[in-house]
């Protein structure tokens, strides 16, 4: 199994298939917010994924220089195409290329799916609690889209709550789609908090996610919800610590931290 030949076949959980680099061709681009685009790729041979997983993207310059980054998958497993939603970071070496330069018809390399912990499928059941900050919504959206494709009965049995924190109303990624999903689905509740520039007449939350907000919105610990938290590190630390403080089992809280690194910090 390994290069150092240490793991026996019995101790290995499965026979690993190498995650091959695949050519992914952009077939559509959706401008989600001023700094965020969704890239829809055709990826021949894509092996499929679970909602919440990510891919590695590799770019190669003409002189052979290469670099890689990880991006969460936005599309549900049921989609024929693979979507990544990317936020342009200040000085982001790869994100500024993906958001600013890449055009329909261009191809990049990617491999995956990666990550087997921050994943959810309809068969896992609920209640489902998703807490996202900024572009941390992306893997949570894959879960919501996957859930939306289940039968109404299956969906109705999975009470689902999204709490989504954005800085400004025009920075809310998937805003219209989230509204449509919530409208069509009595078992889904979407709550926004707008931390810096709430729109005129905004009556919703206008502060960072905190313990009181979670206590007000989230199913009680006795309901044993599955909790997924994704955002930048301080966001995830605050939310996860608050959830532990409110009595949720730490093992039921799955987190994905990401950060603008290598420049914006």
């Amino acid at each position, binding site marked *: 199994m390994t290069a150092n030949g240490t793991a026996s076949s019995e101790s290995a959980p499965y026979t690993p298939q190498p995650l091959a680099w695949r050519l992914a061709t952009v077939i559509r681009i959706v401008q989600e917010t001023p700094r965020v685009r969704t890239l829809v790729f055709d990826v021949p041979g894509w092996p499929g994924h679970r909602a919440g997983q990510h891919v590695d993207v590799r770019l190669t310059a003409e002189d052979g220089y290469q670099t890689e980054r990880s991006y969460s998958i936005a599309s549900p497993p049921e989609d024929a195409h693979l979507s990544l939603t990317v936020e342009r970071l200040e000085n982001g070496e790869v994100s500024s290329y993906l958001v600013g330069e890449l055009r329909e018809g261009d191809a990049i390399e990617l491999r995956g799916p990666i990550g087997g912990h921050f994943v959810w499928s309809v068969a896992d059941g609920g209640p489902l609690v998703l807490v996202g900050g900024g572009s941390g919504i992306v893997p949570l959206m894959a879960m919501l889209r996957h859930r939306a494709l289940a039968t109404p009965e299956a969906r109705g049995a999975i009470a689902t709550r999204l709490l989504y924190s954005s800085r400004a109303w025009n920075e809310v990624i998937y805003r219209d789609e989230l509204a449509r999903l919530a409208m069509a689905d009595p078992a889904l509740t979407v709550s926004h908090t707008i931390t810096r520039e709430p729109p005129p007449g905004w009556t919703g939350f206008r502060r960072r996610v905190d313990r009181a907000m979670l206590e007000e919105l989230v199913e009680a610990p006795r309901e044993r919800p599955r909790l997924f938290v994704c955002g930048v*590190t301080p966001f995830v630390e605050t939310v996860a*610590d608050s959830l532990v403080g409110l009595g949720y089992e730490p093992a039921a809280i799955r987190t994905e931290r990401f950060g603008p690194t290598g420049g914006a910090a």
Partner: protein
Amino acid sequence: MTPISRGFRGRHPEPGAGKLPPGQYETHDFPVLSAGPTPHTPLASWSFTLTAGGKSARWSWAEFEALPHEAITTDIHCVTKWSKFGTKWSGVPIDALLAAGAVQGVQPAPFALALSDGGYSTNVPLADLTNGQAWIAVAYDGGPLPAEHGGPARLLVPHLYFWKSAKWVRELRLLPRDDPGFWERLGYHNYGDPWREQRYAGDP
């Protein structure tokens, strides 16, 4: 044949910067990655255990502090692609831990499984932890190791991808056979050499 990404120039490493393993980029901040909430274990209830073959040695925080410590300056490489050069740590060399354990009858075995608060685990061959290659780190950049970076104590194995440097480590279990840890069971590489880009199971 690697395709060129049209219009991509990239930010090549600055001259004189450290050497980057394939696919990595340099960061100057210190990103945090973990699969769940950050545990906060008080030092009064913290202990460290070394086990092998049914024998174990255990140190309270005060006893652990009395073990030999070393200052370490090293580059670290995370599988999520960032590398950070010249990080400064202090901690107990695994060599010193094994020596102290041997006094209490704990004998080495070829594989190690590090076990952490919060349920995390990771496996490393013992040969990768000895001869000055690994530490239980308790300080970072001149201060106590912050909880979000694995404090009060984390394994530090800087020559492997950083998920091997288990945060919040509480036990090192020495085993006759390899036993894959948390990420190793979820598709990540069993060994994790950044210079051979062993990120995921099946990577050569």
